[in-house]
């Protein structure tokens, strides 16, 4: 009887260790299988040509990813530029100004924003943002725009990454020792001066890490962006042109293109590219954030 308990414990330990190792290996498995799937196209074409050519004619064997890469960067940067000020200001407000009641009230708001599915954001984008751009904003700058544009993608994406930014930044601000802000306040600084000179300066690495994390989320966002950004494989010249980010490219074409091996491989190359960038960005920012958390636990 006594032995059985020990055996159970030992078996459980081995199985659990197996799961843990599996989890670590899983990341490598995804990366490697995408890489091998993408290998044929990388052999066939020069990597440099794939990344810098802007000619996308799959049926003639031209696979230039530049329009998609530029579109992804363009949309994501707009999203960050819009989302960052709102998120920083709101997080500071929630951290240093708001009463407990307001903070309580705001938690579910952020939760809900991060819980709303991409497809719903897409529906909202087509109903609210696209007409707004084509009827109100675009006519002031260009002659005609359908509304399905870089800007629409950027705005929708901005709303989607705001909850992520806020939840990380609130954590980062919270990790600043109270002693520091108290010292600043007791020297006669106003709250805003304390925020500016102590909190923002001290949490600068954290804000950067949060931004990088949000950027990598933005790179990979598929459905919502696909629904509002037009999907034309040309390099967008302005805010009011359609664009075609990498995830949308995969979503629109993958699954049907198994008949053309080089096309399939090209789409896998897109997935691999996305994977590598996201893993690097995520790894770097998570590492920084863990470092910050550790410092907080020590103090």
């Amino acid at each position, binding site marked *: 009887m006594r032995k059985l*308990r*020990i055996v159970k*414990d030992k078996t459980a*330990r081995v*199985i*659990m260790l197996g*799961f*843990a190792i599996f*989890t*670590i290996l899983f*990341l490598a498995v*995804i990366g490697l299988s*995408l890489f091998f799937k993408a290998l044929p196209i990388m052999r066939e074409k020069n990597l440099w040509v794939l990344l810098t050519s802007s000619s996308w004619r799959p049926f003639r064997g031209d696979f230039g990813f530049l329009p998609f890469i530029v579109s992804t960067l363009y949309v994501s940067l707009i999203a960050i530029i819009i989302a960052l*000020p*709102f998120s920083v*200001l*709101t997080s*500071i*407000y929630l951290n240093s*100004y*708001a009463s407990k009641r307001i903070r309580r009230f705001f938690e*579910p708001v952020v*939760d*809900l*924003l991060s*819980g709303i*599915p*991409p*497809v*719903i954001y897409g*529906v*909202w984008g*087509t*109903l*609210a943002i696209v007409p707004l751009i084509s009827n109100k904003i675009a006519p002031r700058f260009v002659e005609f725009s359908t509304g399905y544009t870089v800007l629409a993608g950027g705005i929708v994406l901005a*709303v989607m990454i705001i909850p992520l930014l806020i939840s990380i930044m609130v954590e980062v601000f919270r990790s600043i020792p109270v002693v520091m802000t108290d010292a600043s306040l007791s020297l006669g600084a*106003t709250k*805003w*001066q304390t925020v500016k000179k102590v909190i923002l300066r001290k949490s600068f690495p954290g804000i950067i890490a949060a931004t990088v994390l949000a950027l*990598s*989320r933005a*790179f*990979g966002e*598929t*459905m919502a962006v696909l*629904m509002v950004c037009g999907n034309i494989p040309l390099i967008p010249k302005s805010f009011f042109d359609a664009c075609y980010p990498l*995830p949308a490219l*995969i*979503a629109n074409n*993958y*699954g049907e293109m*198994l008949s053309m091996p080089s096309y399939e491989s090209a*789409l896998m190359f897109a997935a691999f590219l996305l*994977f590598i960038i*996201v*893993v690097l960005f*995520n*790894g770097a920012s*998570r*590492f920084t954030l863990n470092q910050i958390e550790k410092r907080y636990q020590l103090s």
Partner: protein
Amino acid sequence: MKQLEEKIFRIIMIGAALIILGVLIYIVGTIFFKGLPSLTWDMITKVPGGGFYLGKEGGVLNAIVGSVYIIFGALTISLVISVPLVMYINFYLPGTSMFSNIVRFCLDILYGVPSIVYGAFGFALMVYLGIRASLMGGIIVVAMLIMPIMMRSFDEVARLLSRDLPDALLSLGATRYEMVKVILKQLMPGLITAVLLAIGRGIGDAATVLFTAGYTDNIPTSLSQPAASLPLSIFFQLGSPVEEVQNRAYASAIILTMIILILSFSARYFSSKFLKTRI
């Protein structure tokens, strides 16, 4: 001067927070405003009829049931893996274990991998294994997507647990396996929160099921049949040129939004319960 600056920035900050709140209300409001007129009882109790995609009778029951099947399958797989894993890195290994931190780091990265990449990887895997777009495929890929979410949020809760309970159990002569069984009871509200969060993410994601689960107007009766899902049903209906069908897409969006709202609030309820009963 500095008082003026203080006041100005306070107003800007409140403004930013209010705008974010406003956007949330705007999103939910837009969906409800557009969808409510088309939301009928038929929408949630009938599968698409013959002329559904031309604006005739039928509903999206196929998509609702498909989504539920997919998410419950995925949930079962990920629970079986997540719970032991989180218990292992928190209570089997010592608190300062390097290995636990490596696992956590990998989970963080897996959490950040875009759903479209899981979709593409899952589809490649299915081709390799010879599985066609089916309920099975959808379940596997959604499980991949929600597993890191569940593990990460359950891990957060497990880390908050005071070390006294495990220490007391061990000192009474329990094996670690017996200890974990007791701890799990204590952590139950936290696990429920993690599960609800994972359901919310899994049920709303379209990019994972796009290639892997397929789409059908019928309710699947076996794992090898294709299954419809709610987000894809919204997406496809929205792409239709017929106005009635588009309106139904908005109505379907209400259904999905309602599911998410309910999940989100229940998750919040259970996590506050955990914090209250924490010892």
